[in-house]
């Protein structure tokens, strides 16, 4: 049994060190012989057992005795543990490919392929406002009963719907946005953007976004691109924002006037109420055809959910 473990351990080590290659070869020979119902002749298991017991015998004779007596059993246990963890590793790899997280869609926990958890990070609410009572939990994320019609929408009449909930000042929304931009280059995606300003008190940006959308339905994406590129520290500076509005080809005075005349604040407030219904607990949260994806994920995770 121990030969299977030895094969993996020495096999891995031998990639980097020639010293371990003969042992890896020996372990492979042993495993191959056992798989073909022949006796392992290398004595590798005996050597490992003796060396381990011998080392322990010097300092912990009782422990050495336990190891020696139960070596086969321990080997079996470790091999089973190894096989189980190998299966879990496979599942983890599969999950990572599909969801960008070893633990499954929007689950938390350590992931060997993403040790820093960068695919899972979200900006959470700084204040209690708009925090759903049943949050945080990905299982409550939903678009049911959420009126998406009041949000800036780029409707191509395509078969896929991508709803991107984020905030301009949030670092993980900014991290996710380039993937969303790539999605927007596709012809088969309708896009809804919901600004959820949980960081930095940037409610005014929601008003500007909504005002621009009322004036020109196509321009809000251009504004998004510009705002996500802007230094987050400048997002509060109204002069800078108005200059940016000018730069994207909009009349800043017209936008400011629209905010007042169209009572955009009411729209923004209504949007916040709708967003609470989603069970949102952090940004970015992306719904691709109704499936929630929380945190900045690799592009493949989004496209996999497209029809």
């Amino acid at each position, binding site marked *: 049994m121990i030969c299977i473990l030895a094969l993996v351990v020495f096999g891995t080590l031998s990639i980097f060190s020639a010293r371990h290659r003969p042992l890896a070869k020996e372990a492979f020979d042993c495993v191959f012989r056992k798989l073909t119902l022949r006796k392992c002749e290398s*004595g590798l298991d*005996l*050597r490992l*057992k*003796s*060396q381990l*017991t*011998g*080392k322990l*015998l*010097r300092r912990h*004779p009782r422990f*050495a*005795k336990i190891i*020696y*007596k139960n070596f086969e059993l321990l080997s079996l246990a470790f091999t089973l543990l190894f096989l189980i963890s190998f299966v879990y590793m496979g599942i983890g790899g599969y999950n990572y490919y599909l969801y960008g997280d070893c633990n499954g869609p929007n689950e938390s926990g350590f992931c060997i392929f993403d040790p820093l958890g960068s695919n899972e990070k979200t900006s959470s609410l700084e204040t209690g406002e708009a925090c759903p009572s049943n949050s945080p939990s990905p299982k409550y994320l939903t678009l049911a009963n959420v009126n998406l019609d009041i949000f800036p929408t780029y409707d191509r009449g395509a078969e896929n719907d991508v709803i991107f909930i984020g905030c301009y000042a949030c670092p993980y929304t900014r991290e996710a946005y380039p993937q969303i931009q790539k999605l927007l280059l596709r012809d088969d995606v309708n896009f809804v953007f919901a600004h959820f300003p949980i960081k930095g008190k940037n409610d005014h940006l929601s008003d500007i976004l909504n005002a621009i959308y009322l004036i020109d339905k196509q321009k809000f994406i251009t504004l998004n691109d510009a705002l996500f590129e802007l230094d987050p520290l400048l997002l509060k500076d109204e002069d800078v924002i108005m200059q940016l509005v000018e730069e994207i080809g909009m009349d800043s005075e017209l936008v400011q006037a629209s905010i007042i005349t169209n009572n955009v604040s009411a729209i923004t407030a209504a949007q916040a109420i709708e967003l609470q219904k989603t069970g949102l607990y952090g940004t970015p949260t992306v719904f691709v055809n109704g499936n929630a994806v929380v945190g900045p994920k690799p592009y493949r995770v989004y496209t996999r959910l497209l029809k």
Partner: protein
Amino acid sequence: MNIETIRNDFPVLKKDVIYLDSSCVSLKPKQVVEAMNKYYYEFPACAGRSIHGFGSKVSGEITAARKNLANFFSTKPNEIIFTRNATEGINLVANSLGLKSGDKVLTSDKEHNSNLLPWQNLTKEGILHQVVLSNQDNTFNLAEFEKQIEGTRLVSIVHTSNLDGVSFPVEKIIKIAHRNGALVLLDCAQSAPHKELNMRKLDADFMVCSGHKMLGPSGIGALYGKAKLLDQLQPFLLGGSTVRDATYTSAEFEGAPAKFEAGLQNYAGIIGFSEAVTYLRNIGMKKIQHHEQELNKQLTDELLNLEAISLIGPAGPSQRAGIFSFNIKDKDPHEVALMLDQSAKIMVRSGAHCVHSWFNARNLKGSVRASLYLYNTEEECTTFIDAVKAIATL
């Protein structure tokens, strides 16, 4: 015999290891290594050929070495042939003696493969190879030997077995063999390092030994042969230095020992071998033998009463020279050897010790063999005993 002084001559012992595998290869004192280095540093030339300064120096050293070895074995220099090891010496006799179909060769049942396979191989040419079975306690069965000796051309027999350290009564064996017209070849690979050997007294016809087991370097050994017999032997390997003169169609061979030493020799090895023999002689073979037996007595007294230990060979330590060959119940010999190494840095040999035939006949996998030599101490034996006891209780 001052063990501490002796141990200082073996730099490798400063590594804090307990070396109990001298029957395989002994350690080398610095005097031997220095003598060999001297050859390489100061006169690294060939002997018996070139007449320049270096050549003359090497020739002189080799002649002196041969004389030294001859003195060590109480024989004459022209009866000492340098070989690679004891194995080559046995093969030389086997292939040079002129054995004919129907000739009988007797060996014991405890022969090293080196003194078994050459005779097995000759059976293809019609040579008869017979084995004398030992007594129950692994000592030599003289009665059985006497029954089988008739019609024997050669008795090729181990002097001290590397399996269990038991020495055969070679004086009696030689007398019986000679009385029956048989020649005797002694495999002294395990006895030459540990006891005084007097070829004149023993009256053996041939004797082989290895340098690497008697403090000398590896790759050098010696074959002793009675001069009149060596003259009759045909050279086994032919080449440089074996002839006085040669034409395209014929050659005039040298006498012994030159006719058996074809090609350039291992001069550094020969010089080192000679130095090793000098070292042993200076200490005294009797003292060495006594020291080993005392240590073996210590091992035997402490370990033989353990239920889990089974000894190979007779119980009396004086009958087993410096070898303690044993098994621990339900434990593989290799397993025990590895645990000794890992737990207490004790180096022993495990397995069949190249005497597969003996183990196979008894359906045994092998044994653990601790072999003692002049540099081993009582303290080392105590550590070994404690380690074996600990393993036995696992």
